[in-house]
């Protein structure tokens, strides 16, 4: 990543030189020999409620002074057993469970789930639906990255980016609300289409967001990218090699920061992502700073993707025209006998699935989000519904990353992984 070359000692303590000019004196750590004291390691419990843990995460740390010797993460405080609940619900009834997992990018989860069901059933959605879902997913990628950006900046002491980021998030909240009626619990997708088509004037609202958001992003960029405190807190912190990252299951921006260009949108494309023009940002060092740079660039790429998607948004129906999959319109349902029967059958029985299983990965905001569904012949409920949680696998690397770092770095590493506990615990 070319932006890496940043001078570390940018005039923190300007002093007068011999000839009267201003000289930058670097801040260097004091070289004091460590006193040989008889010490023992400490056990410190962080969480499960501390804001810096980004959710209800609990970290039990073994410390030698301020150096982290070992971290044992404890999760499960938000466990709601969504996977078990899903086994008692028909295919469409599962959708509201999906957005409660990752409340930072609900539409991505809505889309990922129905895409898997459609893949298993062999349903091909309409062109308009594909583009609308791409818009939903890219919009929520920005939505999720903005929260990560704001909260991570706060963790290293920068308060202003948080305000800027949340102001922009609010505009996406409003777009969510205009489209789905809810700010977080969107439940916008249905098998074979969407809950509803985009409302009139919605694309103008999104266009308006796309026109001004890049400016705000550049402002945040100016506040953080060359900020000495931010650089000092993130460069060289929590670094991992590309090989280790793949082996330990890193995906998403965390993996790409290590220099691996794995992106599901490019490697296992869905919804014609191969026809969009976008780049995958890749880092070199695999540390917190590169993860930051990758996510910043991903937001810019998402803006470009959204512009392209708006340009190509075709007309036509949004739901597939199969009465066994999509609900008829309310008018038809009330006036046409056949439509009413289809409506009744769809609501009471659900959509029958073929026998088999299906794993579908998509590029979520946190990493590779996979949905795995097992169905029986003619089953209207999943036998097993499994979410491959990107945050869980990313978090499992935390003990390795945080070893031999300071406690304050542990907070930064945890923030840089971009986890959401709702999805880790499910």
């Amino acid at each position, binding site marked *: 990543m070319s932006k890496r070359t940043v001078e570390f000692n940018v005039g923190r303590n300007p002093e007068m030189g011999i000839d009267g000019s201003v000289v930058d004196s670097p801040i260097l750590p004091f070289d004091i020999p460590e006193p040989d004291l008889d010490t023992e390691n400490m056990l410190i419990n962080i969480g499960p409620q501390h804001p810096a843990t980004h959710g209800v995460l609990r970290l039990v740390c073994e410390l030698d002074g301020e150096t982290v010797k070992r971290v044992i993460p404890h999760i499960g405080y938000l466990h709601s057993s969504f996977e078990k609940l899903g086994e008692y619900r028909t295919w469409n009834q599962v959708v509201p469970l999906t957005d409660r997992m990752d409340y930072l990018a609900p539409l991505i989860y809505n889309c990922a789930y129905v895409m898997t069901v459609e893949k298993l059933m062999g349903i091909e959605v309409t062109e308009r639906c594909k583009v609308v879902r791409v818009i939903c997913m890219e919009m929520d990628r920005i939505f999720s990255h903005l929260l990560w950006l704001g909260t991570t900046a706060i963790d290293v002491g920068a308060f202003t980016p948080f305000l800027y980021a949340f102001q922009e998030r609010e505009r996406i909240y409003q777009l969510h609300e205009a489209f789905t009626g809810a700010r977080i619990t969107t439940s916008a997708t249905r098998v074979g289409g969407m809950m509803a088509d985009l409302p009139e004037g919605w694309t103008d609202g999104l266009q308006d967001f796309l026109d001004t958001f890049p400016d705000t992003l550049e402002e945040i960029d100016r506040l953080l990218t060359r900020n000495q405190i931010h650089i000092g807190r993130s460069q060289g912190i929590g670094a991992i090699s590309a090989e280790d990252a793949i082996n330990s299951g890193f995906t998403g921006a965390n993996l790409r920061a290590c220099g691996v260009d794995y992106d599901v949108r490019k490697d296992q494309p869905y919804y014609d992502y191969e026809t969009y023009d976008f780049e995958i940002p890749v880092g070199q060092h695999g540390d917190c700073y590169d993860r930051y740079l990758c996510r910043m660039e991903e937001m810019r790429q998402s803006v470009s993707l959204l512009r392209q998607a708006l340009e190509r948004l075709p007309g036509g129906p949004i739901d597939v025209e199969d009465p066994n999959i999509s609900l008829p319109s309310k008018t038809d349902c009330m006036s046409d006998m056949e439509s009413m029967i289809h409506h009744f059958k769809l609501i009471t029985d659900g959509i029958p699935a073929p026998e088999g299983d299906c*794993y579908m990965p998509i590029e979520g905001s946190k990493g590779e989000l996979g949905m795995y569904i097992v169905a029986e012949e003619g089953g209207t409920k999943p036998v097993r519904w499994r979410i491959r949680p990107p945050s869980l696998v990313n978090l499992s690397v935390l003990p390795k990353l945080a070893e031999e770092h300071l406690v304050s770095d542990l907070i930064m590493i945890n923030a840089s992984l971009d986890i959401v506990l709702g999805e880790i615990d499910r």
Partner: protein
Amino acid sequence: MLDETKTGLDTVEGGPQLSGKSTDSSGGKMDDPDGHPSVIALLSQFGDAVSGHRVFAGTQHVVWIDSACNLEILRWLREQQDHQYDMISDITAVDYGAGRPIEVVYQLFSTVYKRALRVRCKLPLDGLEIDSIVELWSAANWLEREVYDLFGVTFRKHPDLRRILMPHDYEEGHPLRKDFPLRGRFSRAEQTRRALDQSVEHSYIAEEMDLGRDPQQATPIIGTKDGDE
């Protein structure tokens, strides 16, 4: 399917209803392995250990292997030059209920060849044990812990096999099994009673208690129930 005399909550307690139409998803069937080089290679290399192969959802290749040689086959898939499945996307399990075997599912992906393969192992209910693959992929650590927690499958030689989503001293069983009732085995009153009964030490595992123990004293030096530091 449903007994008509049952009311809503009865079906909730009774677990998911099976359609009863299919009994075994693999059934020793062999679909055409063409189109997936790894499946062809697996069949020629480990012919006896591969008990089934199906293609689902158009392009998704699933291979059933003998659970006794999962480590050997997965290692081969990971290290062979022609396959190089360097990424384990997911490890999970499926319980079909009605006494059928629980299946452990490995979802592999090769970042070199951009190929995916799903490997499944059947484990009979009276022998829920399989070799851990943490030595191949460290990502397997938490994923296997989750399968252990929710299905009760024991992974041999796993470095840290304890519950992950449920509390470490959870006593009601394995929630994702089909015979586990949706609302848990204990009544709400019993669950509340147990929760209130716990002391602070309950939230620490044995390993952590050892760390917090003052070598001079027998008692751990963490806050007690009365709230003193």
